[in-house]
């Protein structure tokens, strides 16, 4: 369980995360949605200690992120941001192997190697494992990074806009994979999404943010309502039900 109390972060005088209180239960997929500049990515970065908060508290399974050693947290929680640039030349297997660092401090044991192969297999990267990252397409590279995060074998996985720059097919495959990670591996996945329909189709819970605050946090069906969505995005959004899933229509 991730417990966030009164979390605030300012850039200059404007708060980008403004007194957030939120509890994210263990298990399942939670999507954070909201308009641009709502503070979604900042919230994720604050939880994962990539950014220093101004005030408030964050606990991951009872471990306070301020007082817990970074290496201990790295065995509980991992984060992947959008920026995938790496200055050195690595193969997919090298990159995935870095996921074992919190457990092995760089000296891979036989058990670590097995975990690496498992993570590579989970993303169907076997054929690409010995290729260099700069030889891969954007979608393949994204999969390699996800594989590294899964290899870190943390209970909590944070993904910041994992669908960025992916076409429809790759985006859908990525979301299926995230669902599998939650269902088969028992991960708690928290992700920032722009596409409300992907969020609706694949998540268990949705957290909606606006201007640095949480405006809604509830199971999918409660958020995917015309009036709720309209108030989050300040625009008309219709909702239709298909196969028991709710789809927002906002193209007209």
């Amino acid at each position, binding site marked *: 369980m991730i417990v966030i109390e009164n979390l605030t972060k300012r850039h200059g005088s404007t708060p980008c995360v403004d007194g957030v209180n939120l509890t994210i239960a263990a298990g399942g997929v939670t999507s954070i949605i909201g308009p641009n500049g709502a503070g979604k990515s900042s919230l994720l970065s604050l939880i994962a200690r990539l950014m220093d908060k101004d005030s408030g508290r964050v606990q991951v399974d009872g471990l306070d992120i301020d007082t817990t050693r970074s290496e201990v*947290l790295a065995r509980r929680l*991992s984060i992947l941001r959008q920026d995938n640039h790496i200055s050195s030349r690595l193969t997919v297997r090298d990159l995935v192997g*870095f996921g074992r660092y919190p457990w092995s401090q760089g000296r891979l044991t036989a058990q670590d190697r097995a975990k690496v192969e498992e993570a590579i297999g989970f993303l169907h990267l076997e054929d690409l494992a010995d290729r260099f990252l700069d030889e891969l397409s954007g979608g393949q590279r994204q999969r390699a990074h996800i594989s590294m995060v899964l290899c870190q074998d943390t209970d909590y996985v944070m993904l910041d806009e994992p669908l960025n720059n992916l076409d429809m097919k790759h985006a859908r495959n990525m979301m299926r994979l995230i669902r599998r990670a939650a269902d088969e591996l028992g991960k708690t996945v928290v992700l920032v999404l722009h596409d409300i329909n992907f969020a609706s189709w694949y998540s268990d819970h949705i957290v909606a943010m606006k201007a640095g605050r949480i405006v809604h946090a509830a199971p999918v069906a409660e958020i995917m309502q015309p009036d709720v969505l309209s108030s989050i995005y300040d625009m008309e959004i219709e909702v239709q039900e298909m196969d028991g899933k709710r789809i927002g229509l906002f193209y007209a």
Partner: protein
Amino acid sequence: MPLRERRPALVLVALAIVALIAAAAFMTLGAKGSWAFILEYRGTKLLGLCLVAYSIAVSTVLFQTVTGNRILTPSIMGFDALFVLVRTVIVFFFGFGALVAVPVKAQFGVEVVVMTGFAALLFHWLFLRGHRSLHLMVLVGIVFGVLFRNLSGFMQRMMDPVAFQNLQDTLFASFNRIDPTLLGVSFALVLTASLLMWRIAHSFDVLMLGRERAISLGVPYRRRVAMILGIIAVLVAVSTALVGPVTFFGLLVVSLAHVLCGDGRHRFILPASVLLGIICLVGGQTVLERVFAFDTALSIIIEFLGGLIFIFLLIRGAAR
């Protein structure tokens, strides 16, 4: 094992052999007279060259790791300019005699302390007090470099021409004038820095992945980078105080190491860079001294080659 796995190890072995040959040639070629004297005299020189090669190579590798940039070297932080400024200030206020009269150990001590202090201040100010932008730090370093250079230039213009000429002579890097009495203390400083480095060496590869990934993988980022910057400061200060300012040498050997190894992991790049540094300095010095009977030109040649590599890297980076 596939070739990719074996290549860096083979390269390291080959480099070690070449470095040994260079050292042997340096010790024995053209030796006349008492062997005991020659071995001691050249041995201390060899030790000095190795120490300088090690310091410059390691500090450059680490600096590139923490900045995530393959064309930076620590000298860009204004170290060379500060060295020039310290000497210029001494000569300007106390005359050239002072530079000669002050015992070398005291001079060395002052230079190391000033340069390490400057770096620590800069790193602390820009990096640890909330700002955390490494690029800002590098930029400020460059600006300080320009400031130091201009201050030195200003004082040098007002100086008595003879003092200026004598000063100028001491400002060019010379691998030939390493003072043997400074080796002990230099060695101790470099050893201390290296022991600290050894304890955190496992996190270097992870740092290369960038700040966010390093934190996610559990590296205590700020503390770790501060420590590495401290190690760099000591290494650069020692090597600059020993031989004078060298700008592109580190870039030369580290770039070569990357090309030869084809594998950016530190367990290969660190030793390969050090060995290449030793080969360049010791081998180059041997060839120049024994074959061409030149004296202090090595630094010029090395800086020329390093400069070429720097331009090459810039152009290649721009083309990408």
